[in-house]
């Protein structure tokens, strides 16, 4: 998969770098990587840029990941863009909440690069 424009949303800069590295290790050719530290920054990023894939934490300050996914529904640029949540909040309730908010995949921290590959590639292929 080539020239993927990815948006990585996490309040931890370390985690954003790990996610980017994991995407590259998964074989994705990333033409652009945008980063955001919370949902509000991410919303601004997708309003200003076209992206192909969003990876998003849930538990963040200012605007959390679930609020962001709900808000994303109103952004023309983001129509059909798959969102994969990467979070410590791996409970069934959070999965149900996230599904109803329209996301496409769910990875629980801690994770390996192989797990990122296993979860992200099918989501991109089904786009």
């Amino acid at each position, binding site marked *: 998969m080539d020239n993927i424009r990815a948006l990585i949303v996490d309040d931890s800069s*370390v985690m954003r770098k*790990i996610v980017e590295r994991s995407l590259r290790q998964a074989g994705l050719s990333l033409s652009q990587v945008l980063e955001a530290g919370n949902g509000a920054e991410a919303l601004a990023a997708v309003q200003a840029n076209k992206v192909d894939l969003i990876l998003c934490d849930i538990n963040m300050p200012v605007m959390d990941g679930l609020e962001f996914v709900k808000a994303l529904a109103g952004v023309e640029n983001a129509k059909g863009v798959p969102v994969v949540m990467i*979070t*410590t*909040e791996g409970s069934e309730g*959070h999965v149900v909440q996230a599904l109803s908010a329209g996301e496409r995949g*769910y990875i*629980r921290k801690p994770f390996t690069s192989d797990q990122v590959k296993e979860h992200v590639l099918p989501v991109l292929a089904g786009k």
Partner: protein
Amino acid sequence: MIMNNSNSNATLTTVAGRECWVPTLQLAVNEVFELMLACPLETPAPPPAIPPLEEGLDITAMVGLAGMLCGMLTVRCSSKSATHMASRMLGIEPDKAGAEVWDAMGEICNMVAGNFKNKISGLGDGCMLSVPTVITGGDYNLHSPVNEEYRTVLLFEGQPLVLSLEVHN
């Protein structure tokens, strides 16, 4: 599409079975270190005296828990260990870790707290986590209404890593 990670089926104990919380905490932190740092922790034998107030454990990361379980999880280690953890997480040399050390410590504590609560039946949905806070320096007193404390000491690259779960009932 929902897919489960291989470590997501490990619901080991219940809120009531608190005698299992220390081993559950050890399992939770070990998974974080194995998956995110490619570095399993060692269990010291014999276990060191608790609390192990060795000098130099000068970085403390904290995550608050609220809901069915209220309290605080802390992860404490030396600056040198924290730098090596950040280095391993990012795949960079320790001298390049810089300010990422604090972020890495906070994220480790966050993952341990999340992994721990997801292993306690009923806590996954019933307990929320705060964003992490990281304190540098060892000369401080933390005052909170603690009813119970669960502590364990593991070794990261031979150096102590102290985990403490303070619970407010």
